[in-house]
């Protein structure tokens, strides 16, 4: 553990040292991060294959996942075989599948939030206190001011929304930004001097 700390401290240099050297270092990190993501993929596949072999909960759906993996992988490998530089992600058919099939699922899953937010507006937003009222009124004014209908109802709404964004919101968010900056800098220093070790994973 002591050595990891030394390595971390040693690499503190990029922020201040000569630019080109730091660019090479940070570019190396790009490659490291890529491999880290691969671990996540392996863990996912391991989970689903185990789930099928043990007939665990929803194991039939794990089969769907594996089929999805196999089909898309075939598309990808076809891309690797046909692409000039043997790239997968940049190959035509692979990006077509992403842009025309995958995005539908992703967008629809995220758009479910629209329904939840409408339902929450109806059930959870209560004018219990002055604070809640401020939140609600500012929120409503923003909603009216930032959609065309606000300007149709009263031309002041868009101006109010812009003012709310520019003045009170800027003040509040600036305080949050400053506080977060202090917190992040402290966390980084704690990591560098080895006090904060959560990122290293579990003790084994």
């Amino acid at each position, binding site marked *: 553990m002591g050595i990891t700390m030394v390595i971390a401290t040693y690499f503190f240099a990029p922020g201040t040292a000569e630019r080109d050297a730091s660019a090479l270092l940070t570019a190396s990190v790009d490659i490291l991060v890529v491999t880290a993501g691969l671990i996540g993929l392996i863990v996912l596949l391991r989970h689903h294959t185990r789930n099928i072999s043990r007939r665990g909960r929803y194991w039939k759906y794990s089969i769907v996942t594996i089929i999805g993996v196999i089909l898309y992988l075939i598309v990808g490998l076809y891309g690797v075989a046909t692409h000039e530089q043997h790239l997968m992600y*940049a190959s035509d058919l692979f990006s077509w599948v992403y842009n025309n099939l995958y995005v539908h699922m*992703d967008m629809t899953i995220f758009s479910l939030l629209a329904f939840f937010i409408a339902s929450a507006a109806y059930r959870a937003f209560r004018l219990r206190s002055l604070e809640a009222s401020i939140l609600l009124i500012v929120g409503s004014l923003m909603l009216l001011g930032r959609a065309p209908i606000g300007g149709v109802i009263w031309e002041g709404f868009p101006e109010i929304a812009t003012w709310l964004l520019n003045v009170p919101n800027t003040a509040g968010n600036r305080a949050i930004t400053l506080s977060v900056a202090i917190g992040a800098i402290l966390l980084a220093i704690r990591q560098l001097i080895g006090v904060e070790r959560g990122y290293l994973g579990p003790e084994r």
Partner: protein
Amino acid sequence: MALEKITHLDRRYIYILLFFFVSIPLLAPLKLPIPISEHTYGVYDTTNAMSAGDVAVCSFDFGPATIPENRPQAAAWIFHARELGLRIVALAFWAGGGPIGEDVLRDVYGSDFPNIPEYGTEVVYLGYIPGNEVGMQTFGDNTQSAKGTDHYGTPIGDLPLMQEVTSAEQVDLWAEWTSGTPGEQQVIQFVQGRHGGPSALPIVVGSTAVSVPGMMPFYAAGQIVGILNGLAGAGEYEKLMSNDYDYPFEQGPGLDAQSVAHVLVILFVAVGNIGYAIRRYSGGES
């Protein structure tokens, strides 16, 4: 007690109401007028102030989840930049933005992109650059260490435009299409802050509406010079483009639907609170 019943609706009725009312303006557009906000003018004026041949970085840092907002923003802006003769270095720091960015560029430059004569000199597409904020900093410091090739596998050193743009020092404008981290704050911290600040590298942002309030301190400080705010921002920019050039204004029905949705949410809050007030004053639960 009919009123009390209204305030105790099952969530599924809320869903159906939302589905129904938002559908109406999409099928029969209301054609509401679009006011253009100062934040949108910030993007428009900054871009207009550029001269032909200036280099603009166009960064697709969003995933599929915000396509309805970010995609029309980016398409309208790239169209504008191309009309003004800006040279565009397009890239993505989000993996999901890579293929989407290519699709947007094909919308503007035609479906043959990148097999077009101006590729390499007027526009390049570097695709996904890994490493999140680390990748951003690398790109800002030395474009060639950030990635070896463009999106299609051509070495970066072989592209005439990239021979000229070796670091963020040669970039005149940064257009950031963002829906999270890494996004505009990371560009400010790791690119703009290291390469001369806001005066040397102005940043314009097109963002999902969620993150806009959070970027206002940076807007007020001049670190960001213009913001396209969600779908409304996209519609406003399309409107400006359709006024200046022959650009299709397509977000009209969407903005009408947005108006209806917003009014509906406000009504939901109001009805919910009326029910709450009734219960409270009739001695029920607080």
